[in-house]
């Protein structure tokens, strides 16, 4: 096995900081919207159950406190999640894949293909309904270094998965 390990000029290295992140599927905003409505609905149902059948006399007097609470919380969620989603994106390079996430606390994780141990494409119930898939890449570096790229077109996800596992040499060991 050969490998070269000459000293490198750090300034000549390719850098990751390029504006070439591929955004996730725009249509996924619908799924987020639907999820938010479902969450709001569940919270309101919980409130109504407590209001009519719960053993809490104060709730009749101060019913507006939980309602305003739910309103503020879901208002924030409705505003925040689409914004955070728009920032998510990935970059596929010759030897690694980069995933960017986070609106305020931003994270960019790079996984070299040679360190991918296992890869899979998953689809949740909403994903199946709307036609989106998630690409999962697992490494030996623990759960924080595993990548999970959501909101991909199922065809894209499968292609990506094939590409990555081919690069990782996972196919040969099958």
């Amino acid at each position: 096995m050969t490998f070269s390990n000459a000293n490198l000029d750090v300034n000549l290295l390719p850098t990751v900081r390029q504006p070439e992140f591929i955004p996730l599927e725009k249509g996924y905003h619908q799924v987020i919207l639907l999820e938010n409505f479902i969450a709001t609905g569940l919270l309101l149902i919980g409130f109504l159950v407590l209001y009519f059948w719960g053993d809490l006399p104060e709730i009749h007097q101060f019913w507006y406190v939980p309602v305003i609470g739910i309103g503020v919380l879901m208002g924030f969620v409705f505003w925040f999640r689409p914004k955070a989603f728009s920032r998510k994106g990935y970059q596929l390079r010759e030897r690694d894949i980069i995933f960017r996430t986070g609106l305020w606390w931003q994270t960019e994780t790079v996984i070299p293909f040679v360190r991918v141990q296992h890869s899979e494409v998953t689809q949740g119930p909403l994903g199946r309904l709307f036609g989106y898939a998630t690409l999962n890449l697992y490494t030996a570096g623990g759960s924080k270094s595993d990548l999970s790229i959501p909101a991909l077109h199922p065809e894209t996800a499968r292609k990506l998965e094939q590409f990555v596992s081919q690069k990782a040499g996972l196919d040969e060991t099958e």
Partner: protein
Amino acid sequence: MKPNDDFSQAARQSNAAIIIIIFNLYRNWIKRLLPIFLALFVSSGKATLLVTTFGIFIVLVALFGIIYFFKYTYYIADNELIIEKGVFKRSKMVIPFERIQSINFKQAILHQIFSVVELEIDTAGSSKIEFDLRAISKQKAEALRQIILNSKPEKSSLPLEETTSPPAPTPKILFKLSFGDLMKVGLTENHLRSGLVPIAMYFWLRDLLRNGGINLDDLATKYADPEKLYQLGLIILGILFLGYALIAILISMIRSVLRFFDLTFYRTEEGFMVTYGLFTKRQISIQDPKIQIFKWQDNLLRKIPKIFNMQIKQAASAEVKKKTSSIHLAGLSERHIHQFLDAYYDKDYAIDDFIGISKWWFIRRLVIYTVLVIGSLILYQYFPEHPAFGISAFFFVTLILTSYLYFRKKKFGVNDEVIHIKGGRFGDSHQLIQLFKIQGVSLKQSPFQRRKDLAGIVIFTAAGNINLPYLAYDVAEKLRDYILQIVETDGRAWM
């Protein structure tokens, strides 16, 4: 002296296993049955009844142990270790060699008397295999270990470099710890950590007395002159503290001598071997490819004799990522550590240039904690009856101090083979990772870091993550790109 060293025929454990099996059975059963025996004795009051039941129990257990021994056989077939055992219910265990990660030896006192070893096998399975080869002779254990570890590459599908011919059976001694070294380890344990013991004892005593009808708090207010009580309290506290310090030091000295007695480090063909222990002897083997991180650190006390604790962090298996194991060693001098590292690295691991973290890391904490100190002091001014506010002010001041120490010590340096990360607060810690063993890298930015053009970096390895907070953005970016470049071009397998 070598009857069927290929283990192809079913063999029993060493004869000494009979005694060890029976001893373990007695220990387990007596623990469980003692209350019943006592109850029998107390209720009947007849000593003869007790003696006869006890006698029957002793004989039955011994019989069971003997049969168990004769029914327990192990052998090797088709690159699998097979164990058949059981008296009433027979069972057969099959352990494929490729799932065996490492084989360590353990010797309790009984083992040492009969010069046999117990095998501890680390397997790469999600389900834990209950493995109890309790006592086989040292030579057999050694031979078994060689067979299992040497056969591994053949079955593995990984393209391993040319496999070495049968490893030399005599490992080279790297270094050995003396009795004096062990005393130093005991003296410099973190005694503060167990400082809660006397306090706990006070509360326990007080509760005991209260249950007996004596209330210490009442007594104090009723009878004692507060001035005298205060003095008495101080004296008792002093005695307690001194006594505690003496006992703590003595206990940790005895403990470290027992635990690390005769600690010897060997360099073997496939990695390292460590043996240590007085009553329970252990022999641990570490294979080079599995080592992910070397970590060594001292504390304030260990700075005086200049000794370090060392941790060798390993990836236990490629499949089961949750399972990592690390080996802890104590009492190593800087020279020992360098002997160790020299033996492991064929490349230069010494780094001269270190880069620290941004001052903003400290400034941010300084501001936050100062606000908290002032807040606590103001609250204390208004509510002097609540000492918690005073204590919290003191607590935040110590946080400022430790943050400053952390900020001063956190540094990293790289060359073309390793990354060396320094850290620590009162003590100093060092971590050394081969760059090609890194699994992935994350760059993190909080809103504050974005304003100051800073970024944190997280390095993922198969034996845990390493954080470097608050680097200048271009430094973090260069470090990340450099690590990726090495990982992606270095052809060596990370494990």
